[in-house]
C-alpha cells in the first residue's frame, strides 16, 4: 500500500469536501501476473480444496483447506473424517492465521542474526557431533512419520534422548486406565448413546480430549427430535461453572480436587444399589468412602449426591468423563481411576467408554521425565537441546527452574515457526513450516490415520522439521530413509495409489473395534490418595485451560484473543474469577486488580466476581501473559514485549501426581487487593434478559403438550407471521436461518468461522473495551428468563449466576436477522442497506456514508461500524494474503454486518443458472453453519417447504427474537429445552 493511497487522498481532500472529485486520476495501475506453468487443478477465481489435518490440538480433526490462486483462505471440516465429521472448533478455524502470521521466522537465525540453512544446520551438526550423548530433543508429538524420523535419529545417532513434552500430558488418565483396565492408553468416550453424562470437570465441550467429536455426540444424545424425553442429562461436578458446565442440567459444586473421592463414593453407592458381579470391581471400590463422608470432603450437600446416585442407578447408559489434566491434582491418577471405576460400575465400559486394545503410540512423557531433563540441564549434562512444537519456557512452572537450566545448555536450537518465549532464548533457530505448508500425518487413535499435506508453497525460508532431522541424521551417519519428509510420508502411506487416495480423502479411516475391557484385580491399588495442596493461602488456585488459548499456543492468534471467552465474555487479558462473597470479603468490584500469591510467585489480575465459582477458590485461565509476539504480548495494543495479562503457569509448584504426571491443581493462593483498577474488554455487561424472551426455554412438560406450571410463557410460541413471505413475490428464494438454541453449547466456532470467511477485522483491546468488536455473529449468554432488575451500575458486569443446583444458562447466537421489515433499511438516507428480491437485508459498503442511523435503529444491535481504516491497518505482514477475495474489505467509516454469506449464495447461483434450475437445498452452507460442531445452525430457502431450514423448525419451540416489534426476522430460533427433572433437582 503506497504511503498516500487513493483512500487517504480522498480523506485529505474530503476536508475541503467540495474538491473530493479530484481523486479520479489517482487509481493505481495494477499488474496481472499469470503463472509460468498453470497447474491444471487451479483456475483463477475458483477455489481449490485440499484435505489435510488440523494441528491446533491433539484431537487431529480432518480439514478441507480451500485455496484461491494458491493461497489457503479458509479451513473447513473434512466430512469424511471420523473425528470431526466436517465440523471444526474455533481454534481450528483460525489455525489458518499461523501461516500468514507476522510473528513468523523468515529464515534460520544464529545468535540473533539471520543466516543460511547450510550454516545453521552445520552449526547444529557440529554441536551434536561434539557430544551426541548430551543432545536432547524436547517437543510435542508430531504424528507417526515425523516422530519416527526423530526417534530414528535420536536412537541411531546415540543422542541423549527425546522427551515428548505437552503441557497437558494425559499421563494421569493413561496411568489410571492401565491400573484399572491394564492398558496404558487414553480411553475413547462416546456420548452419542448416553442418557446421563457426568462431567467431572472434564471440559469435554471445549478443552477436553476431542471437543468437536464429543460435542457432536452430546448434541445427538440430546436431540429432542429423537429423544422426546429430552435425551441425555448432563451433571457437572467441579468447583467452577465451566463452558461445559453451562450446558448442564445441574451442578454439584464439589471442592477442587475432590472429584476422585466423590466419583468413588458414587461408584460404591451405585454398586450397592445395583449389585455388581465383577469381583475385581468389587474389591476396587470396597474401600471407597461412604457417600456422606465424600459429601463432607467435597463440601456439597448429601441430598444432591443421593439424587445423583438414583439417577445413575436408573440410567441406562451413563458416561462419566474424567477431569481434564488441569483439573486434577496430586491424586490425578486416583481421581481418573475412580471415574473409570464409576463407568465400570455403571456398566458403560465398552459402549460409552471404549478402552483401546493397545497402548497409545507416542504418548507424552509424564512431567517427571521433563523435570529429570531440566535437572540434567542444571547439572550441565545437556550440551544441545533441540526444542520443537513446544514452548517450555512459557508453559513449565517457574518452580521447575527451566529458564535457569536453559542458561547452562551449550546450544539451544529451536524449531519453532512462530516466535515464542523459548525460541528467543535459543542460539539457533531453524524455523519449521506451518501445518498448512508441511507434510506429515497424525493418528489420534488406532485405525484413524490422518494426513497432513501442504496447501501453499512455504512463504518464508523455512524447512520442514523432518528434513532438519534427516540432515542431522545423515550427518551423524544414521541410516535414515532416503529422500525428503514428503517421500517418507508417501512411503509410510504405501506410496502410489493408496497415497494418492489418502491425499484425496485426507487419510485412511478404519475405526478399530476398540471396546470392552475388564477391571484388573489390582485396580484397588490405584485409588484412595487424597489431593495435596502446597501454599498457605485461603483459596485454591484453579489454573484452567482457556477455551481458545489452550496451553498458550492460541494466544498468538488475534481471533482467539478477541473472541470473548464463552463463560465470562472477557477478551484480550487475564482475569481472576472469584465468588461474590470473596469479592465482598476483599472489598473489590469487577475490574479491581488483586494480587495472587502462591509462594512460587505472584501475579496481578483484575477480578471478575461471579456466582459460578466456590468461595474457597480463585480461577485464572491458562494461556495469557506472553512476553513476545505481535498479538500474544502488546498489552493495551502497546508495543510487543509488554505482557498481556499474566501467565498463571508460572505460579504453580512443580508438583506431580502419583504417576509422575504434572499436577496443575496443587496450590493454594492468597489474594490481596492491590488498589489498582484495570479496564477490561467485557463484551457483554448484563446476563439478565429482563424477561424479553431473547433466549427462551421450554419445559419437557410443555413439549409433551402438558401444562407448563413452573415456566411462564406459552407452550407453543405463536408464529406472528410467515417469514417466507418477506421477499419479492416472483422470487424462488427467501433465505433464512434456523438456530436451535438447544444444541448451541456456546463454543463460538461460528464466530471464528465468520471472522475468517468474511474478512472481519480485529479491533484490538482498546477498542474492544469500547464495545467496538466487529464480529458479525455474537453469542449472548443469559441466565434464566431474567427480571427487570439491574442496569443502574456504573461498573456493570454479569451477576446472576448462582452456586450449584439447577443450571439455567442460555446461549443465543445473535446476528443480523435479515428482517422482512427491517428498521435499518427505511432510515438509511442513501439506500446503502436495502431488501434484496431474495429476502436478504443487503449492505452495500461502497454506498454507505456512515450516518450510523441504521445501527441506532437496529433492534438487535448487530451492525458494526468501521471506526478506523481496519481494512488496511489490521492485516499486518502477510495476513492480508488470507483475505477472502470474494468479500469486499470494508474501508473506514462504513457500516457492516452479517450478510448470510451472500458471496456463497452468489457462488451457488452459478451452476444453478448454468443448468437452468433453482439452487438446491444444502448447496449453500454459511460459514457459521458449516463450522458448528453441534449442527445448531441451518441455512436455506424458506420458500422451499422441504428445505431443512423449514423441516427443522419445531413449532413447539420456535420463536422469533423480539417479534413484538414486527421486524419479521428471517431467523427462527428454537427454544432451549428445560430438562431439569426431579432426579437432577437439588
Amino acid at each position, binding site marked *: 500500500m503506497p504511503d498516500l493511497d487513493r483512500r487517504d487522498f*480522498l480523506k485529505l481532500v474530503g476536508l475541503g469536501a467540495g474538491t*473530493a472529485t479530484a481523486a479520479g486520476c489517482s487509481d493505481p495501475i495494477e499488474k496481472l501476473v499469470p503463472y509460468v506453468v498453470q497447474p491444471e487443478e487451479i483456475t483463477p477465481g475458483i477455489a481449490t480444496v485440499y484435505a489435510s489435518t488440523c494441528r491446533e490440538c491433539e484431537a487431529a480433526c480432518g480439514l478441507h483447506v480451500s485455496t484461491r490462486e494458491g493461497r489457503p483462505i479458509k479451513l473447513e471440516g473434512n466430512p469424511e473424517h471420523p473425528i470431526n465429521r466436517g465440523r471444526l472448533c474455533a481454534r481450528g478455524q483460525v489455525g489458518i492465521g499461523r501461516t500468514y502470521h507476522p510473528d513468523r521466522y523468515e529464515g534460520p537465525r544464529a545468535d540473533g542474526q539471520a543466516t543460511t540453512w547450510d550454516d545453521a544446520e552445520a552449526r547444529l551438526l557440529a554441536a551434536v557431533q561434539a557430544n551426541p550423548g548430551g543432545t536432547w530433543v524436547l517437543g510435542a508429538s508430531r504424528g507417526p512419520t515425523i516422530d519416527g524420523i526423530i526417534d530414528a535419529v535420536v536412537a541411531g545417532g546415540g543422542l541423549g534422548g527425546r522427551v515428548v513434552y505437552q503441557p497437558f500430558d494425559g499421563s494421569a488418565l493413561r496411568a489410571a486406565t492401565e491400573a484399572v483396565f491394564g492398558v496404558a492408553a487414553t480411553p475413547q468416550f462416546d456420548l452419542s448413546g448416553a442418557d446421563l453424562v457426568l462431567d467431572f470437570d472434564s471440559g469435554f465441550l471445549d478443552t477436553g480430549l476431542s471437543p468437536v467429536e464429543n460435542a457432536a455426540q452430546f448434541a445427538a444424545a440430546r436431540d429432542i427430535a429423537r429423544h422426546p424425553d429430552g435425551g441425555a442429562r448432563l451433571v457437572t461436578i467441579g468447583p467452577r461453572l465451566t463452558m461445559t458446565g453451562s450446558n448442564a442440567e445441574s451442578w454439584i459444586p464439589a471442592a477442587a480436587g475432590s472429584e476422585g473421592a466423590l466419583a468413588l463414593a458414587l461408584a460404591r453407592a451405585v454398586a450397592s444399589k445395583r449389585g455388581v458381579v465383577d469381583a475385581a470391581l468389587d474389591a476396587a471400590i470396597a474401600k471407597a468412602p461412604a457417600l456422606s463422608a465424600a459429601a463432607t470432603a467435597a463440601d456439597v450437600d448429601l441430598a444432591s449426591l443421593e439424587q445423583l446416585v438414583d439417577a445413575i442407578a436408573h440410567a441406562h447408559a451413563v458416561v462419566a468423563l474424567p477431569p481434564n489434566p488441569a483439573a486434577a491434582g496430586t491424586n490425578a491418577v486416583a481421581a481418573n481411576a475412580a471415574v473409570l471405576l464409576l463407568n465400570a460400575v455403571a456398566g458403560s465400559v465398552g459402549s460409552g467408554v471404549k478402552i483401546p486394545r493397545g497402548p497409545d503410540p507416542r504418548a507424552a512423557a509424564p512431567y517427571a521425565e521433563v523435570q529429570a531433563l531440566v535437572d540434567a540441564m542444571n547439572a550441565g549434562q545437556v550440551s544441545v537441546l533441540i526444542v520443537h512444537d513446544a514452548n517450555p519456557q512459557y508453559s513449565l512452572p517457574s518452580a521447575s527452574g527451566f529458564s535457569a537450566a536453559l542458561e547452562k545448555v551449550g546450544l539451544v536450537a529451536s524449531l519453532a515457526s512462530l516466535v515464542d518465549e523459548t525460541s528467543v532464548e535459543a542460539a539457533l533457530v531453524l524455523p519449521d513450516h506451518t501445518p498448512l505448508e508441511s507434510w506429515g500425518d497424525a493418528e489420534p487413535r488406532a485405525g484413524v490415520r490422518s494426513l497432513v499435506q501442504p496447501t501453499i508453497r512455504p512463504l518464508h525460508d523455512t524447512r520442514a522439521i523432518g528434513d532438519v532431522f534427516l540432515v542431522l541424521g545423515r550427518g551423524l551417519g544414521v541410516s535414515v530413509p532416503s529422500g525428503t519428509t514428503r517421500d517418507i510420508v508417501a512411503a509410510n502411506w504405501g506410496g502410489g495409489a493408496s497415497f494418492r487416495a489418502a491425499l484425496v480423502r485426507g487419510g485412511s479411516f478404519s475405526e478399530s473395534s476398540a471396546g470392552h475391557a475388564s477391571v484388573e484385580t489390582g485396580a484397588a491399588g490405584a485409588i484412595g490418595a487424597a489431593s495435596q495442596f502446597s501454599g498457605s493461602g485461603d483459596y485454591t488456585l484453579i489454573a484452567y485451560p482457556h477455551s481458545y488459548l489452550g496451553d498458550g499456543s492460541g494466544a498468538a492468534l488475534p481471533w482467539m484473543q478477541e473472541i470473548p471467552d464463552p463463560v465470562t465474555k472477557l477478551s484480550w487479558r487475564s482475569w481472576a474469577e472469584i465468588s461474590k462473597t470473596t469479592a465482598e470479603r476483599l472489598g473489590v468490584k469487577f475490574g479491581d486488580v488483586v494480587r495472587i500469591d502462591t509462594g512460587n510467585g505472584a501475579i496481578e489480575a483484575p477480578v471478575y466476581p461471579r456466582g459460578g465459582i466456590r468461595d474457597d477458590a480463585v480461577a485464572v485461565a491458562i494461556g495469557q501473559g506472553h512476553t513476545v509476539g505481535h498479538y500474544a504480548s502488546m498489552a493495551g495494543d502497546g508495543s510487543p514485549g509488554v505482557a498481556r495479562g499474566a501467565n498463571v503457569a508460572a505460579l504453580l509448584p512443580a508438583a506431580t501426581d502419583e504417576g509422575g504426571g504434572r499436577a496443575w491443581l496443587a496450590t493454594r493462593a492468597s489474594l490481596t487487593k492491590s488498589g489498582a483498577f484495570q479496564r477490561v474488554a467485557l463484551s457483554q*455487561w448484563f446476563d439478565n434478559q429482563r424477561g*424479553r424472551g431473547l433466549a427462551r426455554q421450554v419445559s419437557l412438560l410443555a413439549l409433551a403438550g402438558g401444562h407448563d406450571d413452573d415456566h411462564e410463557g406459552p407452550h407453543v410460541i405463536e408464529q406472528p407471521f410467515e417469514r417466507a413471505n418477506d421477499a419479492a413475490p416472483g422470487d424462488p428464494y427467501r433465505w433464512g436461518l434456523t438456530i436451535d438454541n438447544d444444541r448451541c453449547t456456546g463454543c463460538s466456532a461460528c464466530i471464528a468461522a465468520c471472522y475468517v470467511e468474511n474478512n472481519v477485522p480485529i479491533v484490538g483491546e482498546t477498542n474492544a473495551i469500547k464495545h*467496538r468488536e466487529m464480529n458479525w455473529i455474537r453469542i449472548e449468554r443469559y441466565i434464566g428468563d431474567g427480571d427487570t432488575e439491574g442496569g443502574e451500575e456504573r461498573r456493570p458486569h454479569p451477576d446472576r449466576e448462582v452456586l450449584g443446583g439447577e443450571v439455567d444458562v442460555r446461549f443465543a447466537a445473535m446476528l443480523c436477522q435479515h428482517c422482512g421489515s427491517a428498521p435499518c433499511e427505511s432510515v438509511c*438516507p442513501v439506500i446503502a442497506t436495502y431488501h434484496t428480491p431474495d429476502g436478504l437485508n443487503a449492505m452495500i459498503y461502497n454506498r454507505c456514508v*456512515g450516518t450510523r442511523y441504521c445501527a*441506532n435503529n437496529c433492534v438487535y444491535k448487530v451492525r458494526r461500524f468501521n471506526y478506523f481504516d481496519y481494512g488496511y491497518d489490521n492485516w499486518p505482514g502477510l495476513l492480508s494474503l488470507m483475505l477472502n477475495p470474494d468479500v469486499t474489505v470494508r474501508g473506514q467509516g462504513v457500516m457492516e454486518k452479517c450478510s448470510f454469506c451472500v458471496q456463497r449464495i452468489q457462488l451457488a447461483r452459478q451452476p444453478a443458472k448454468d443448468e437452468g434450475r433453482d439452487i438446491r437445498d444444502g448447496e449453500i452452507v454459511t460459514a457459521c453453519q458449516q463450522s458448528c460442531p453441534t449442527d445448531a445452525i441451518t441455512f436455506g430457502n424458506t420458500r422451499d417447504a422441504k428445505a431443512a431450514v423449514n423441516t427443522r423448525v419445531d413449532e413447539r419451540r420456535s420463536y422469533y427474537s423480539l417479534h413484538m416489534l414486527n421486524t419479521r426476522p428471517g431467523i427462527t430460533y428454537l427454544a432451549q429445552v428445560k430438562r431439569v427433572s426431579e432426579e437432577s433437582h437439588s
Partner: protein
Amino acid sequence: MTPPPPATAVADMAQSSPAFQDSKINRDILNPTRYVSLPWLGLLLLAVLGVGQAVFSLGYQTYVGLGVAGYQAPVFWAVYIITFVFWIGIGHAGTLISAILFLFRAKWRNAINRGAEAMTVFAVLTAALFPLIHIGRLWKFYFLIPYPNQRGLWVNFKSPLLWDVFAINTYMTISIVFFYVGLIPDIAVARDRSTGLKRVIYAILCLGWQGTSGQWKAHTRTVLHLSGLATPLVLSVHSVVSWDFAMSIIPGWHATIFAPYFVAGAIFGGFAMVLTVMIPSRRIFGLEAYITDYHFENMSRFILFTSWIVGYAYGMEYFIAWYSGVEAEQTSFFLRAFGPYWVSTWIMISANCIFPQLLWFKKLRTHVPTLFVLSVIINIGMWFERYVIIITSTSRDFIPGAWGLYIPSPVELSILAGSFCWFAMFFLLFIKFFPIIAITEVKELAIHEKYGGAH
C-alpha cells in the same frame, strides 16, 4: 400582555425635530460600527482561535477515523447530533420573533428582532455543519444530495435524515434572505454615514436603496410575504428534526409527542440564547435606550411559558412509558432518571423546569444579571436535554446483552467548543459591521410615538 409603555428614550426623541432625532438614532445604533473596541477585538480573536482548534480536530478525526470520538456500541449517535439539534433549536426564536411576532404586530420585538434574526442565521450555519462532521465518510457527503448522477442512484426519501437535508437547507435559505432583506434600509443608512471603501461595499450591499416610497412599499410587502413563508418553518423544521428520533424504534425515541415537544424546547432555548447574546451587546454598545427591561420582561414571559410546555413534555414521556406497559420503554425511562446518566437527566430537569420558575417574580424578570445567568443555565439545560434523549435511549435499548455506556472524547468536546466559537465569530463580525437594531423600525416606532402615540 401589558401595552408597551413609551420607552423613555423614544419619548425624548419625540420632542425634537425628525431630522435630529433621526440622526441621533442613527448615531447611537451605528456607533459600534465606527471604531474597533479592544474587548471586541479580544473576543473575536478568542473565537477565531476556538474555530481553528476545532478545524484541526475535525481534520484529525476525518483522517484517522471516527474512532477518535467516544462512540461505544450501542451508542452510535452522540455529541455531534446533540449539538446539531441544539443549534437548530437556537435558531427558532429568531424566526419566531422576526416572523410571527411581526405578523402579530408585537411592537416590542422591534428592538430585538435584528439581533434575533442574526442569531438565527448564524445558528443555522453552525448546525448545518454537524451532519457532515457526524458522518463516517465526509468525502462522500454528496451521496446525501439528490442529484442526477452517472450511477443512476437516488437517495432514500423515506429516511428522516434526508428530510433533515431538505429542512435545513430550506431554513437556511429563508433565514438568510429574510435577514438580508430586513437589513437593506439600514445598510443604506450605514452607507450614507460612511466613507471610502466601506461606503462602496455598503453601497453594493444595499442594492441602491434610496428610501423612495416605491421601494418602501416593495420592501414592506417583501418582508410581509417572507414572514408568511418563515412562519410555518418555525414549526416544520424542528418537527422534522424531531422525527429523526420519533420515526425510530428505540425506546425513548419512539414517541408521537416529539414534534411539539422539540418545537417548544427550541423556542425556549432560542429565547434564552437571545438573552445571552443581547444582554452583553446591549451593555457593550450602550444601547440601553433601545433594548429596555420591557423587552427582557416580555421575553422572560415567553421563556416561562415554554418552560412549562417543556416540563409537561418531560412528564408526559414518563407517563406514556409507564402507561404503555412496554417493559423496554419503562426500563429506558427508569434508567434515564436513576441509571448511569442520572446526572445529565437531573441537570436537564432542574435547568429547564425548576430554575425558570424564578421568572414568576417581576423583580427577577427585570433584573438583568439574573436573566443573564438564567439564560446561560437554560442553554446548558437544553443541550443536556438532547444529550439525555440521545445517549440514555440508545445506551439502554432492546438487547440487554449489548448495552453499553458512552463518554465524550476530547475531540468531540473540542469540536463542540468550536461550534460556539464559530457562532460567536459570526455574531461579533455582524455587530461590528451592521446595525444590531433595526434602525428603520425603531424610527417607525418613534414617529408613532410623536404623532398620535401607540395604536
